């Protein structure tokens, strides 16, 4: 009877565990029902660096003169070349950025192609649970409503980030974020025809110094990981160029609006990038990005 009782307890516990796991798998995209204590650490204060997703940078590209240039993106065929964990995770971020780019230009077929690559790499790095039934349904629906294309890619990115955080895979997240950032900047810096001091896009490229600094701090949290250490070393060269940027007065640059509760924040100064620095950055970004993707084009 003792044996029976033990079996009963075991069976009940196992049954509960099984149903819980299924539940978690089925609701991943909504992040439901899964305990995650990524905030849990021994120290009394924790810091979280929130890096904007690639789509946010692309959302500023509303200049009609900026044409869609798919040749800048990492070819889908390259996905087969990424064998080790580091290259898979970095290039997962690269392809996620390419997906955001195609989506921002409302390129449906291109977006679907990149979604498929992202899904394939997701399996390789064991995060395919992100693409559950709900997410796949949303992806299919993009053909019915153009407005949801960007929303879906944005939501996908967020679900991936959260999935990695709750799975305590912060190293993977760091590499993915680094890959996404470098690809985003690579694309943006190459689609503008030439340096223009007054270009808003050039200003956004200069402003990426702030994101870069957060990204590096985020990576440094896990620098004991050799893959991340190597990535930090590669990215340091970019940091040297960003370090040259000067802060200039921008007192008259902000138009005051009178929205009810909006608080205007930020200093009256802004980063300024010279043509020489811009070209140096462009070259360095291409070098680092092509090292990651294995491409030879600049």
């Amino acid at each position, binding site marked *: 009877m003792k044996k029976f009782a033990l079996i009963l307890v075991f069976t009940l*516990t196992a049954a509960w565990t099984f149903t819980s796991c299924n539940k978690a798998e089925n609701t991943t995209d909504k992040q*439901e029902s899964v305990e995650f204590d990524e905030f849990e650490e021994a120290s009394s204060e924790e810091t979280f660096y929130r890096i904007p*997703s690639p789509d946010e940078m692309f959302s500023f590209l509303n200049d009609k003169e900026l044409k869609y240039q798919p040749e800048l993106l990492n070819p889908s065929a390259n996905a087969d070349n990424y064998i080790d964990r580091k290259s898979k995770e970095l290039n997962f971020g690269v392809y996620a950025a390419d997906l955001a780019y195609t989506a921002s230009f409302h390129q449906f077929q291109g977006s679907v192609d990149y979604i498929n690559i992202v899904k394939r790499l997701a399996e390789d790095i064991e995060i395919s649970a992100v693409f559950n039934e709900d997410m796949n349904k949303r992806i299919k629906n993009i053909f019915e409503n153009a407005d949801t294309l960007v929303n879906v890619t*944005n939501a996908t990115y967020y679900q991936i980030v959260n999935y990695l955080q709750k799975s305590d895979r912060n190293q993977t997240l760091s590499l993915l974020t680094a890959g996404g950032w470098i690809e985003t900047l690579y694309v943006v810096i190459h689609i503008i025809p030439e340096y223009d001091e007054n270009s808003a896009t050039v200003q956004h490229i200069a402003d990426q110094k702030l994101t870069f600094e957060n990204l590096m701090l985020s990576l440094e949290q896990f620098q004991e990981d050799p893959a991340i250490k190597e990535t930090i070393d590669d990215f340091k060269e970019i940091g040297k160029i960003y370090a040259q940027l000067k802060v200039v007065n921008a007192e008259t640059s902000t138009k005051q609006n009178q929205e*009810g509760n909006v608080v205007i924040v930020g200093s009256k100064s*802004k980063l300024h990038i010279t043509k020489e620095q811009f070209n140096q950055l462009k070259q360095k970004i291409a070098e680092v990005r092509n090292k990651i993707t294995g491409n030879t084009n600049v």
Partner: protein
Amino acid sequence: MIKIVSKSLIIAVFLLFTANTNAQNCAEFVNGQSLHFGYSFNSMSKSGAVKTGKKYKFIFTLNKGKIYRFAFYASSGLNNNMEFTITDQNSALQIMYLPGEVPEAPLEDEFNSEGEYNGYDDYGNDDYGEEDYGYGEEENTSSSSSSSNTTSTTEDLPDYKAISGIVFDAVLKPGYYNGRLTYPFFEFKPANAMNLEILIDIKELEDGIIKKGCLGLLVQDKADELEFESL
């Protein structure tokens, strides 16, 4: 024998119960919220499990040309007692300091004299949106009259829209205003690209018991039409 079976069943049921109640559904503190009218979801949003007696710092990179809306949601088990310190990292200026606990939910007439909050009704979308509220505000007054810990006042920040008379119900305990369930939020318009630091200090409980709960920071954004035209 029956006793053993019964005990085993009790243990099993206990295990099931405790395991399930411990499970945090923190993601719903972001995913479960509706977006405010006119805003899009920003993937810098964050949710997770937190506990009393700890501080959580979030660094956000904000871009010029957008208006950002940060809405906060938290478990009631955290005792509605947390402090927010929001700082512009680039200038190291503290933008606002918000003490967590407000004894009573504000009455409608405690909103600022210009009634900015009611402005949200202008959207004519009572059934749409996040159903939240922010704070009262007046120009040219100190940033937090209720806190002695404020390190800088808006006198130091003449061009910032000043915050005062904070109508802030910590969590974070949502209240009903004009018949709408409301949560705290802040809206920021970066004058230039910047890093915004939000430090959330979840206060220790008086009895020393550590409580766990969920915290959600829903970040939304929209194009700042005034700035975007020039991009």
